[in-house]
Structures are given as C-alpha cells and as structure tokens.
C-alpha cells in the first residue's frame, strides 16, 4: 500500500449536519486513500455516512452540512478549501459521479443529448457540432443502440438501464480521472445490474479510471472491488484488499455483513443484524457497533477501538484483536461459507 501512489487522500474527514433536532454527526474521522487505477468499494448500511463522504469529495454537500475537520487531498489541492469557482473546474472534468437513481438524476424535460453536451461545452469549449459528435460516439461506446436517434430523445423515452448508461456517459464525457459511483445499480432490475457493473468495469480498464464504488450489497462488492472499506456509523471499521475482507474478515460487523449476504448454497435462513444503527445525534461512547455486537467486550462500551494491523494491507478497528482479548472465532456458519467461496474461486481460476 505504501508503494502505490494515491491519487486521492481523505484524511480525518468529519462532516456534520445542522438538523432541526441538533447536530447530526454523519462522518466521524474517515481516512482512506484511492490509488491510481483501482476500484475502492465503500460498504455499509444506510446512514453509515458513505454517501456523505462522497458528496464531500464532490463538493456537493447540502447547505446545512459542515466539514468540521479533515482534508481531501487531490492533485496537491485540499478539496475542502476550494472556492465554488475553483471546484467547478474539477467537477465533471476530473472527478465525476454516477448517481443511484437514473430516473431522478436526469432532467425530465431536457433532451438527453443536450444534457450530455452541456458538460463538454463547459469544460472543453467544443462547438455544438463537435460536442454532438463526441457525445454520440460515447453513447455508442457504452452500448446505447442507435445513438444518433437517441440523442434527440427525452429521458422518459428510455428504460432504466439505458438511462443509467446516459448518466455514465455524462460522467465520462470529459475523461475524468476519478469516477464516484453512488450505488449505481440499486434502482435497477437485477438483470440490468450485472450489465451496468460489467460496463463500469470495462470502461475503467479502457480509460484507466480510479473508481470509488459505494454500495450496501456485498455481492456487488465481490464483483467490483480491488480494495474495500467497511463503514459503520460514520467511521471506517475495517479496510483491506478484496481478499482480506472476504477471506479473512476480522471485524464482527464485517462478519455480520458477510453472513447477511445471500448465496446459492446456503439452505438456512439468511442472517440479519439485530438492532438498529445508532442515533447519530448522540453517537454512543466507545465502539458504536457494540450494542448490536454478539461478541462485544466490556471495553467496547468504554473505549473506542483503534485500528489493529493484520497485514500491510489489512486493518480492523476492534478490541478483539488486542492481546488481552479472549480468542473469538468468526461464526461457524460464516467459516464454512468462506471456505466454499475459496474453493469456487480456485475452480474458476483453473478453468
């Protein structure tokens, strides 16, 4: 990890919202690096702060949000300190974003062609005709049939999957370095999901993109990720390479997430994590996951765990890794599951 050169660094990012009832601490000291050419998945349940983190990177936090601390380093700049005008030079041109729901992300009464060329025209000063050509070419590249005809249509004339392709075209129009995907498949049919995921993978390879991929779906993560951050209650609780997280998970929350993932083999009822996420108006003392953790230690309610190093690439924030802690193994059920996954992977590689 240290050898690689990070293209984007998030350091101790803390974001809170001034809500009616008080201050909501959505993101509480998040650190991660995004390396050139990799896909970093951020996983967590709703409200864990993953979308807020990425909105902070894009500089599109809502008005009542405050970045309390921390910095986002990109190309020698701290994105948290840029003026709106400077940010406009980066958004769309160097960092772009794909939204969750393509239905609401596209302007319903503007032709898709115009929505695509808009980006080209602000950042690259293309003429009308050049922008049109380049847009149609891109539309073809992401697999939209008859791009010339489609160029002059409105979003309501497109299916969900096609709309998401348009959103991807808009994001990629100016050849950005970083692509942030905020649950890009959640709002789509299952059959379309895998096509869009494949498309993002292909585009990433072709264009040497660095991708931040946000999702709550572990199945999607397995498909996409080079490295994975697991977030809970505004903090990263475990991070590592895809293999680290899937084959050697160390944090009880990651265990729970993996157990909750459906797979074709398991016959028993799907595991669900008991309890509800903490109220971020008043985050609990100690480990935020402790109240729902089947393996919670007494110390979890008193002290917040630091990151324990498992390998060069793999860190987890749980007191279970402390030398004083009793030896706790991951649940039996999950161990079997992981063994099955490893076997499947081996078979796959042999073929």
């Amino acid at each position, binding site marked *: 990890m240290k050898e690689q050169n990070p293209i984007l660094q998030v350091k101790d990012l803390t974001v809170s919202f001034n809500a009616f009832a008080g201050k909501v601490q959505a993101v509480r000291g998040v*650190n991660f690096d995004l390396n050139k050419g990799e896909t970093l998945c951020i996983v967590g349940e709703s409200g864990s702060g993953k979308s807020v983190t990425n909105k902070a990177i894009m500089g599109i936090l809502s008005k009542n949000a405050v970045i309390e601390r921390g910095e986002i380093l990109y190309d020698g700049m701290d994105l948290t300190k840029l003026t709106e005008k400077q940010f406009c030079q980066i958004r769309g041109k160097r960092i772009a974003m794909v939204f969750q729901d393509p239905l609401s992300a596209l302007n319903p009464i503007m032709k898709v062609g115009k929505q695509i060329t808009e980006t080209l025209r602000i950042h690259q000063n293309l003429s009308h005709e050049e922008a049109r050509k380049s847009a149609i070419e891109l539309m073809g590249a992401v697999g939209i049939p008859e791009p010339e005809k489609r160029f002059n249509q409105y979003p309501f004339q497109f299916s969900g999957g096609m709309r998401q392709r348009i959103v991807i075209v808009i994001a990629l129009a100016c050849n950005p370095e970083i692509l942030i995907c905020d649950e890009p498949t959640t709002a789509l049919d299952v059959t379309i999901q895998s096509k869009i995921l494949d498309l993002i993978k292909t585009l990433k390879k072709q264009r040497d993109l660095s991708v931040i991929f946000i999702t709550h779906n572990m199945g999607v993560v397995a498909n996409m990720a080079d490295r994975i951050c697991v977030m809970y209650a505004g903090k990263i609780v475990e991070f590592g390479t895809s293999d680290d997280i899937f084959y050697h998970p160390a944090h009880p929350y990651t265990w729970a997430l993996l157990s909750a993932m459906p797979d074709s083999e398991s016959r028993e009822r799907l595991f669900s994590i*008991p*309890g*509800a996420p903490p109220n971020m108006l008043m985050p609990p003392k100690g480990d935020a996951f*402790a*109240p*729902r953790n*089947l*393996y*919670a*230690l*007494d*110390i*979890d*309610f*008193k*002290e917040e765990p*630091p*990151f*324990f*190093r498992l390998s060069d690439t793999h*860190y987890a924030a749980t*007191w279970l*890794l*402390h030398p*004083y*802690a*009793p030896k*706790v193994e991951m649940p039996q059920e999950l161990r079997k599951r992981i063994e099955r996954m490893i076997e499947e992977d081996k078979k796959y590689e042999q073929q």
Partner: protein
Amino acid sequence: MRTFEHAAPEYSSLQKEDFKLHERDDAIHDAKFETKSVGFFKDAMLRFGKNTASIIAFIIICIIAFFSILGPMMNEYGYNDQDLNRANLPARIPGCEKINLLNGSTVLKNRRKDNLTDTEKYPEGCILEITNESVVNGVKMCDVRIDTYIYSGYGDDYFWFGTDYLGRDLWTRVWRGCRISLIIAFAAVLTNVGFGVIYGSIAGYYGGMVDMVMMRIAEIIQAFPNIVVMTLFIMYFGNGLFAIIMALVVRDWVGTATLIRAQFYRFKDSEYVLAARTLGTKDRTLIFRHILPNAIGPIVTRTMIAIPSAIFAESFLAYIGLGIRAPEASLGVLLSHAQTVLLQYPYQTVFPAALISVLMISFNLFGNGLRDAFDPTQRGT
C-alpha cells in the same frame, strides 16, 4: 491513521479485566418504538399547534364569529331602523374623542367665518377646529371641523361605526352582514363538499361506465365560466339566501368531486381494500370505513380554503347587483353601497373593508396551517 501500535501510549491504561465478553441481560433485538402511537388527528393537531400564525388566525376567526353572533345586540339600534335625519353620520366611539376617524367629526370646507357664531346653523359646542383661514373677495373663509352628532342634533348618540344613507346603524349592520356572509360561505362550502364527496365517491368507487358518464357531466358543468353560471342561477332563482348559497355551489362542487374521485382511484385497488373485499365487506363499509378516511386531510384542507373564496364570491355577486335582498345586507352589499359614496364618506368603506380583509387573511392562514398539519409533504404549496 491511528493504529494500535502508533497509538499505544494513549491506551496504556487499559485494564485486562475489561477484555471479557460483555454479559447481556437479554438478547439483542430491534429497538422498540418508545413513543406512544399517536392517532392521525392528534398528530395533525400537534403539528397545527406549532404553527403560531395559524393559531392567531384561528383566535381572530373566533373573535369575529363571536361579534357576528352578539355584535348586533350590543347597542339599542336595529339593523333596519331608518331615520333620514341622522343619515351618513361618521363613526363615534366613546373615549376616542382625540382620534378624528372615530370621534364623529367631519370637515366642512369653505365656510363663511362670520356664520360660525350663529347657533342656528352651528349648535353650541359642535365646532372643534378651524383651519385654512383665508379672505376671498373681502369675506373671511375657513374650513371647520365639526362634531357631526351635535351639528345634526344627535349629541347623545354614539354610532360606533357611523350610519349609512338611510341613517341605519353601521355597527349593527356590519356585524349582521358579517354573520350573513359567514352563513352563506359555510353553508355553500359544506354543501359543496358534501355533494362533491358523494358524487366523487360513487364515480371513483364504481368506475367504468358510471364513472365515464358522471365525469363527462361534471366536465360540461365545469366548462361554463363561473361568472356565467352564477349570474344565470341568480337571475332564475332570485337573490334569496338559499339561491345565493346554491349559486356558489352549482359549479364549485365539481372540483371537490374530482379530488375525491382521484383519492378513490388511488386506494380502491390497494392490497388492504382487496383484502377487505375478499372478506365479504359491503360496498358501503368499504367506501366509508376503508377508503374515504384517507381523503380526510384533503377534504378538511379544501373546506377551509374554500371558505374565503366563497366569501369573496358572495361579495363579488353583491357588487354586480346580485347580492342578498334588502334590507338584509352582507359584507359585500355594505361594501358595494359604501363604494358609491367612497369619496364623501370614506368611513363607510373602512369598517367593512377592514373586517373582510382580516377575515380573509385569517381564513387563509388557518387553512394553510391545517394543510401543513394534515399533509406535511405539501408544505408551502
């Protein structure tokens, strides 16, 4: 990044005995809702209670309603006691002698100054102030502010809002008029909503051919311009109280019916209605117990917002000469009379105009508050 090795000193005080599995008293379960469940109405009322402007508006409406009922009885003048000798007296309220609008005074312009001492023309004590003195052709002229009551020989009377061209007490007439306007508005709106709900429910619930025919009829009615319908209606049925109320309903109920029909279309195929139907629930029960309660919010809101429109429509009719039959008067009738003498006797306009404005503002604010309370998602529209 804070890892354990790096941060070791910070955690030097860790106690070994803390590192044992936490003992729980009971299994972890999803958090229960700890608040009591709040009914739909109670919830709406709680939200309404937080809206200060609407509460004030409600209090003002109550005060106006109180005066509409009891106001006409507060002095000894009847609403139709005519006496031309006391016609067009300005407002005079005890204790307001210093306020020109309320002390029963009038300014007479260009009077001969010499005549002011003549007690035949100017009874004793009626002259309050002399201004604008000048000499025209050798005659001293001036403007004089007089106490109109003493001047006309009614020194002991107090008409709080003044009198009209027939010498009738405006206080009594304004509050009585307000009462009539409110009666017309409430009756019209209740009829409108009642009929609209029934019509819309039938069309929406049965659908198909019934719906088609009923909605075409409604569409044709709505195609008539409102003013045309109201005019024709009153021309035919006359300008009694009932006819005016009906004139306000005859086209407006269509809007309510459309709204209710849409609600039915939204809910009649929902799972819970189908479930009730498979259990053999009767049509009537389905309509009134299962579907209609969903529309209660929009109905209440529409009712409250329709009231100021009805008050406005009634005044509108009064202005074009189709108002309620004399000697009764609604606020609109009073205003349209006052309008004709606006430049001579502005006070006759001031009181009914202020009252109708306050009434309309209050009803609008109250209606907005109710809408926000019943449907928080509609805030601000």
